[in-house]
């Protein structure tokens, strides 16, 4: 069997690189992480004609080989390390026909590394509309490469690209630009000192602060044959290099590309006039947010109800079908409600990622960054913090990772610290079930009260995030130098395939990532709730029966229920729960909620699953979690446990407390110290406790 061809897809952000990747690999792709770092690694297999196969690696988007972020480091590290198993046989540089000039900068750099490089000009279907004409043959000659015109959207040119990949050996590996003329003497000395290395590689090793597989940075700088240049000198040389490359590119494009501006129809400027308008821009942004949250709430409630009922039914069915015993109970009371607690998230997560990917795909997100930058800066954040804060509504983990393109360390750190306040999807089920219990399902002025409450909670999350950013901005004493540059991509219709793949990937990673923790905790909880120490637990039925001996009017069913609840109270979990009850009672909670809160320090979404598990132990009725919760009685005050006051108190606690181990772990990774995650855990949780306390005491 022939060896797979290793292909690396490289390109600027917003060139449709991912669309090309999706067209090449279809669903035949997997997303993982690069070892040791949290940069997403996307790879897939592409079937080529004549029975050949290619391994396609979709590298993070970058504007050049001058890395300024972790994501960009990955690109250089791979391209400089020939012994890496993913080292490409051929590099495919994806460019966008409208920004060809800028895209070619990266192309010339990669070409200079001596890797056979195919240039893909994407969005070729737009050429006519934009009045662009290209002399492809001449372009191929000047750039010494194979050029393919592709439209990932219209699915044209992909077969040609596959053909070009098969024939990669015929592509010249000659460089386009001789970078050494920017400092001839310096490069001469380099050449003499390291005769076996590619000169341009050496230059990158010297200028980039990244890890390299086979070239040692120190070895170069300690070499006596030449003195290492100072940082400012190097930067000047990099500027020179960029100018040199643009001279080359301008020359090439003058010969090969014609733009007839008169035939260009500019939708962009018309849309921008409205969407980035001083008043309408903000009004539209707020309107879009409102629409999204109303949609998530009303659309996902149907599948969620269905899932809730299905799992309740399944539990009951297992109990009646399988022979009675500990094993059946474990499945019916531990595993199934636990699984239900995972599956019930899927509709909301899918809807949320659906909307977020539409905002990103269309290019609208950059306009939001533009609109919000000045306002966010007042609070020590950057316009680019909007993206993490909005993706934080899905999950804080990708949101913390999304802060990487914020240039200023201070703005980035503050964003990381406040992102966990935004309402992530793990809070959603907690909110939904409590809102359903304590907020009336009525419409006021056409708005559903429950939907409004949910929106209010989202706004509260944002508000507290921004407020604490403002405080942090005052406290943190970090020298701040901003290099804010953001590309405003052209507007595009979102591609269904990209959105679908994104939604499926994100949902899958949630189900399998968080799902494992939830399931494990559910099982542990079931064990703790089903067994207990001492006589009280083991002789529960005798003790309860004796108590009710004189009252002959108690029915068999009622007696069973009393026994079950007595057992639960004396199980391991009951003992633990009653132990912390004094701490949570002032907030209006009973010991069962206390247990749910403790277990949700692993992950918030465990809350509903925990209550489901605790309430199902010993329950025979086929009932939904919601109904069981509504029937709970407050042990101290009497009356229903879930009142308006205790409900609001719980909502606030979940809005503010830092209850997610995975977020803490990612913050540690991104900030490289335990200081910040520990600060988050302590401050957020104390704040949550006191706010919830105040709310319950004022409202009860």
């Amino acid at each position, binding site marked *: 069997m022939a060896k797979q061809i290793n292909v690396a897809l490289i390109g600027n952000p917003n060139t449709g690189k991912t669309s090309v990747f999706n067209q090449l690999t279809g669903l035949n792709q997997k997303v993982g992480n690069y070892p040791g770092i949290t940069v997403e690694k996307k790879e897939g297999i592409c079937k080529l004609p004549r029975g050949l196969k290619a391994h396609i690696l979709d590298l993070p988007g970058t504007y050049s080989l001058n890395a300024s972020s972790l994501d960009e480091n990955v690109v250089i590290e791979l391209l400089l390390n020939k012994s890496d198993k993913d080292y490409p046989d051929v590099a495919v540089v994806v460019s966008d026909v409208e920004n060809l000039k800028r895209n070619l900068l990266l192309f010339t750099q990669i070409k200079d590394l001596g890797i056979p490089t195919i240039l893909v000009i994407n969005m070729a279907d737009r050429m006519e509309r934009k009045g662009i004409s290209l002399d492809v043959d001449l372009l191929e000659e000047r750039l010494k490469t194979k050029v393919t015109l592709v439209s990932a959207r219209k699915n044209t040119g992909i077969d040609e690209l596959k053909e070009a990949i098969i024939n990669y050996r015929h592509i010249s590996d000659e460089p386009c630009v001789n970078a050494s003329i920017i400092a001839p003497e310096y490069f001469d000395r380099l050449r003499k000192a390291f005769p076996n290395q590619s000169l341009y590689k050496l230059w990158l090793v010297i200028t980039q602060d990244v890890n390299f597989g086979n070239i040692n940075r120190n070895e170069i700088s300690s070499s006596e044959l030449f003195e290492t240049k100072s940082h400012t000198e190097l930067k000047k040389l990099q*500027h020179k290099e960029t100018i040199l490359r643009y001279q080359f590119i301008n020359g090439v494009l003058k010969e090969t590309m014609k733009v007839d501006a008169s035939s260009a129809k500019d939708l*962009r400027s018309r849309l921008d006039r409205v969407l980035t308008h001083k008043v309408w821009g903000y009004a539209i942004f707020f309107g879009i947010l409102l629409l999204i949250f109303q949609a998530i709430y009303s659309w996902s409630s149907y599948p969620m109800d269905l899932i809730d009922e299905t799992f309740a039914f399944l539990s009951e069915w297992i109990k009646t079908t399988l022979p009675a015993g500990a094993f059946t109970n474990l499945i019916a009371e531990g595993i199934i409600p636990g699984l239900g607690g995972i599956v019930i998230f899927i509709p909301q997560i899918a809807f949320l990622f659906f909307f977020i990917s539409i905002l990103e795909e269309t290019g609208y997100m950059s306009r939001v960054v533009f609109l919000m930058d000045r306002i966010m800066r007042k609070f020590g954040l950057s316009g680019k913090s909007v993206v993490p804060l909005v993706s934080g509504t899905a999950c804080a983990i990708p949101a913390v990772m999304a802060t990487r393109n914020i240039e200023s360390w201070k703005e980035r750190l503050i964003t990381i610290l406040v992102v966990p306040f935004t309402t992530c999807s793990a809070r959603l089920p907690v909110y939904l079930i409590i809102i359903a219990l304590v907020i009336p399902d009525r419409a006021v002025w056409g708005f559903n009260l429950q939907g409004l409450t949910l929106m209010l909670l989202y706004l509260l999350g944002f508000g507290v995030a921004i407020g604490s950013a403002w405080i942090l901005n005052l406290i943190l004493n970090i020298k701040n130098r901003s290099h804010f540059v953001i590309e405003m991509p052209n507007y595009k219709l979102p591609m269904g395939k990209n959105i679908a793949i994104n939604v499926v990937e994100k949902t899958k990673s949630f189900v399998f990532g968080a799902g494992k923790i939830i399931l494990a905790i559910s099982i542990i909880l079931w064990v703790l709730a089903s067994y207990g120490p001492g006589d009280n637990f083991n002789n529960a039925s005798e003790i309860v029966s004796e108590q009710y001996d004189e009252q002959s009017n108690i029915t068999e069913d009622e007696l069973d229920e009393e026994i079950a609840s007595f057992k639960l109270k004396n199980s391991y979990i009951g003992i633990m729960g009653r132990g912390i009850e004094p701490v949570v009672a002032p907030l209006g909670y009973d010991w069962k909620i206390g247990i749910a809160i403790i277990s949700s320090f692993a992950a918030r979404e465990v809350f509903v699953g925990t209550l489901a598990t605790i309430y199902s132990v010993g329950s025979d009725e086929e009932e939904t979690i919601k109904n069981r919760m509504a029937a709970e009685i407050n042990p101290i005050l009497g009356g229903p446990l879930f009142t308006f006051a205790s409900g609001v108190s719980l909502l606030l606690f979940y809005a503010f407390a830092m209850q997610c181990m995975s977020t803490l772990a990612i913050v540690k990774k991104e900030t490289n110290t335990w200081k910040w995650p520990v600060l988050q855990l302590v401050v957020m949780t104390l704040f949550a406790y006191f706010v919830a306390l105040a709310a319950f005491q004022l409202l009860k």
Partner: protein
Amino acid sequence: MKLTLADLKRGERGIIKDFSEENIPLKLLEMGCLPGNEVQMLQMAPFRDPMYLNINGSHLAIRKEIALLIEIDLIS
């Protein structure tokens, strides 16, 4: 007084003359912000900050503090 990018009004164009190299991020150069290239002001957020520009065909937004460092000649 020297004219900078930050002085452009909406729709106005200029040619980039010069800038103090040390304070300009390399990324901006890579996006095409180089002496001799044309630049047009497209939109401004409230308080003229940030600014949305077309630099040499690239559509970018930058903050006022960087725009102030880039000298231009106005094209009328």
